[in-house]
């Protein structure tokens, strides 16, 4: 697939049309290796900030500033170089993108360098550990029941761990890191083929890095991380099939596409669904541009992928519908209410978004992207209207406005919008890249700005770099880890990674060793992922009523009976600290409204309930056995 007649990406701010200054300019520009070195120092400084947090300075402003200094050292040189008016070779461009991706991944690794601590990673660690121990797939996972049925990530990880002898954690880091980098490289390759310009591809990937899950969820040890490169490989293969020069290898490319699509199906449900949807959009783009060959191949792969996904759900993973239905139903219901003139009750920006400056940054980023996308559309209309992939990306970019609307107006829409952003950002970033390249192009006649091109160019490039930085920083500020746990540090009640401490892990290990796996357990928000993963226990989510009264109420008794709760884990620190995440329990009716910690009497009441045994005590954590009580199983 070649670019449109004249690719806009070939012409930087002061380009080859100005006396061939590029080569000379490039010789005086900052070498990519220096950018890599600066980014490496950024990683080092971020790691130092993390270490300061662990040593008791997690709340200190200078540690926080050090972290952001590290991030700026990673982001600024890369953004400046990619948007610079000095020409970059394709190799330099891809190196910059690799530097950005690897550096951000290393910062993520430095957050939890000894073990997985993020809840979703712990869920998949449990599945991988089960495969290592049993040698079988599809072993039950109490924490994330759907995980064993989409075990591609765990298969590769346990394969690496089994053969090399490395731990599941180290193997998981290798697999997730390779998958994340591979996805970025595949997208770069695809964007480069579509636009015919490595510059557009590079800027698109820079903007894609502003997606809030890019440096976190998309590179964590979770199933989507591995499914994404398969998604990208399937798209690349379909892109190559329709090219004239692929005449001799169409069967080969289609086989690659089918293998990648099947691997996606076996790895992640949402990615599988969105692969089918993306192929349909590509088909539409091909039909609109009258590229029948591409339309045929893309629709054929869409059909095969859909059939494979349907068969997988029907015969292997019937849990999928029940797992995804609540999110989809809730969002659709919200949209219905919204369209019928009602109000769904979703505030424009929820308290979970954090401080006002974070919300302001998020709003600015939304505005920047929302302005850039239409400019990109115009570029597609002017220069790429016969290019099926560019048209498909333009169609796909409309979903940007859909997820913004869903996030802002639909109650509980942030879950769906968050999940979709990984995919929605792909076309949106490409459109935004076309816009950025066009707006920084010297051939553009700016209204009202009558400054000499040479004097204007640095200002325009600086503005573009600043806008890109705002976008990427927004992704980090409003991504993961959340602002209240930006740095690792001492234990926090109902936090995220900081709720995974040695005492919590020890109690979970004890529960698995002594009580066995799969017991029905009640616990709080912070202990849940640890008890469910290390402890392999079956956690009851809606258990608030057990912890919020000084006496054992009839509601509590009913819950124990109805949910067959055999054990209760009580973390006495719930009476010492407010919940970092705003909620003490997985389902918490008082979320965000706590002004004081829970009373200790609410937690110790189990000592006085007839028939309840206090079977474990580690100081902060006490485990009660309810099976001897009158309420259990009666």
């Amino acid at each position, binding site marked *: 697939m070649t670019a449109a007649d004249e690719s806009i990406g070939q012409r930087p701010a002061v380009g080859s049309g100005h006396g061939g200054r590029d080569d000379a300019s490039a010789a005086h520009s900052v070498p990519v290796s220096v950018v890599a070195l600066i980014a490496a120092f950024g990683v080092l400084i971020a790691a130092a900030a*993390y270490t300061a947090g*662990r040593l008791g300075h997690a709340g200190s402003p200078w540690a926080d500033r050090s972290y952001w200094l590290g991030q700026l050292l990673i982001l600024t040189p890369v953004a400046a170089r990619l948007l610079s008016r000095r020409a970059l070779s394709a190799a330099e461009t891809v190196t910059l993108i690799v530097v950005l991706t690897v550096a951000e991944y290393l910062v993520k690794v430095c957050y939890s360098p000894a073990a997985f601590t993020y809840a979703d990673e712990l869920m998949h660690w449990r599945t991988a550990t089960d495969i290592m121990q049993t040698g079988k797939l599809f072993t039950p996972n109490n924490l994330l029941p759907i995980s064993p049925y989409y075990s591609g990530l765990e298969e590769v990880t346990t394969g690496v761990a089994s053969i090399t002898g490395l731990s599941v954690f180290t193997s998981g880091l290798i697999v997730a890191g390779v998958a994340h980098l591979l996805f970025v490289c595949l997208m770069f390759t695809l964007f480069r083929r579509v636009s015919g310009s490595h510059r557009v591809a590079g800027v698109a990937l820079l903007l894609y890095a502003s997606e809030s899950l890019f440096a976190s969820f998309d590179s964590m040890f979770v199933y989507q991380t591995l499914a994404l490169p398969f998604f990208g490989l399937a798209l690349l293969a379909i892109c190559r099939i329709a090219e004239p020069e692929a005449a001799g290898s169409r069967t080969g490319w289609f086989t690659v596409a089918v293998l990648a699509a099947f691997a996606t199906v076996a790895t992640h449900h949402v990615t599988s669904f969105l692969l089918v949807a993306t192929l349909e959009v590509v088909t539409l783009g091909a039909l609109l541009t009258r590229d029948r060959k591409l339309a045929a191949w893309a629709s054929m792969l869409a059909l095969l992928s859909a059939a494979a996904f349907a068969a997988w759900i029907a015969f292997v993973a019937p849990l999928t519908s029940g797992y995804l239905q609540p999110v989809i139903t809730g969002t659709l219901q919200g949209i219905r209410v919204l369209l019928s003139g009602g109000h769904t009750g979703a505030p424009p920006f929820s308290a979970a978004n954090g401080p006002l400056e974070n919300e302001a940054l998020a709003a600015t980023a939304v505005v920047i992207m929302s302005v850039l996308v239409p400019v990109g559309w115009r570029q597609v209309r002017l220069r790429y209207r016969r290019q099926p992939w560019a048209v498909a990306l333009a169609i796909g970019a409309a979903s940007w406005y859909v997820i913004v609307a869903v996030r802002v107006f639909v109650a509980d829409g942030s879950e769906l919008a968050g999940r979709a952003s990984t995919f929605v950002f792909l076309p949106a970033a490409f459109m935004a890249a076309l816009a950025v390249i066009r707006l920084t192009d010297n051939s553009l006649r700016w209204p009202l700005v009558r400054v000499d091109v040479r004097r204007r160019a640095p200002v325009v490039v600086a503005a573009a770099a600043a806008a890109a930085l705002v976008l990427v920083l927004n992704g980090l500020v409003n991504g993961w880890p959340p602002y209240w746990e930006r740095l690792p540090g001492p234990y926090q009640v109902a936090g995220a990674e900081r709720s995974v401490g040695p005492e919590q892990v020890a109690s979970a290990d004890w529960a698995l060793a002594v009580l066995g796996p799969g017991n029905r357990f009640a616990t709080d928000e912070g202990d849940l992922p640890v008890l469910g993963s290390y402890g392999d226990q079956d956690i009851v989510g809606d258990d608030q009523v057990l912890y919020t009264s000084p006496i054992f109420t009839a509601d509590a008794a009913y819950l124990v009976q109805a949910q067959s709760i055999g054990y209760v884990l009580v973390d006495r620190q719930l009476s010492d600290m407010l919940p970092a995440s705003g909620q003490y329990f997985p389902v918490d009716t008082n979320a965000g409204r706590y002004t004081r910690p829970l009373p200790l009497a609410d937690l110790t009441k189990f000592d006085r309930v007839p028939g309840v045994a206090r079977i474990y005590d580690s100081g902060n954590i006490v485990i009660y*056995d309810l099976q001897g009580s009158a309420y259990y199983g009666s």
Partner: protein
Amino acid sequence: MARSQADVAATALAAGLACGAAAIGAPTAVMTVLGLALFVAPGYLLCQLLVGSNVTGLERAAVIAGLALAVPVLGGLILYATRVPLHRAGWLVLLAGVTFAGDLALLLRRRFGGGAPFTWQLSMHVPRRQLAGFAAAVVVAAGGVGLARIGAATQPQPGFTQLWLSAQRKNEHFLSLGVQNDQGQTTTYRLVLLRDGRASVTWNITLAVGRTWQRSVPLTGSATVAASLYRLPDLTHPYRYVSTASTTVAGP
């Protein structure tokens, strides 16, 4: 083997060496290098077989890596379906099998089907100064990861002691009574076993860091069994407390 088949020889050698090293129980460092090579080999061969020389550079590397990751995902399902345990032997058979099959197919294609022979082209020239810059970046970034690991290992954590008293899964007539020291230092305890509130047995225990003390306690009649753990020299306040049934006198 001719130079034009060097890739076939290299992938077969990687597979053979990985299997051989696994058979003799080679150390993790060796297995890591050979194992990762074994993971890449099927991806390379599939790329050669399916799209041949139509891809170059970054695109080729990406296709190889993508296929290399897809092989264990789809192959693992086949292993499971054929009831082969997903342990080291199973994975070695899968990856080495795909590699050898791919080698054979590629060899036959080049001999009889007109497939392009292997060629090695290193077109990219990177100046030494640039290489030094990248090397320094790797060292600095690795230093960052090392610093983070040291920080995690030396993070101050409050010590704790675990005490438990629970029914044994294998024998319901006995209780498992145990203490584990995670205080971060050798600690001396006094453990008092109570039956219906009266002291039955007392143990003085000294445990090093991470060590565990365990006993089986017979469960007789309907007596409530409890255990109070004191951390010496404090014999006034129970440090930990467990019980088979609720008591009006709660623990610490």
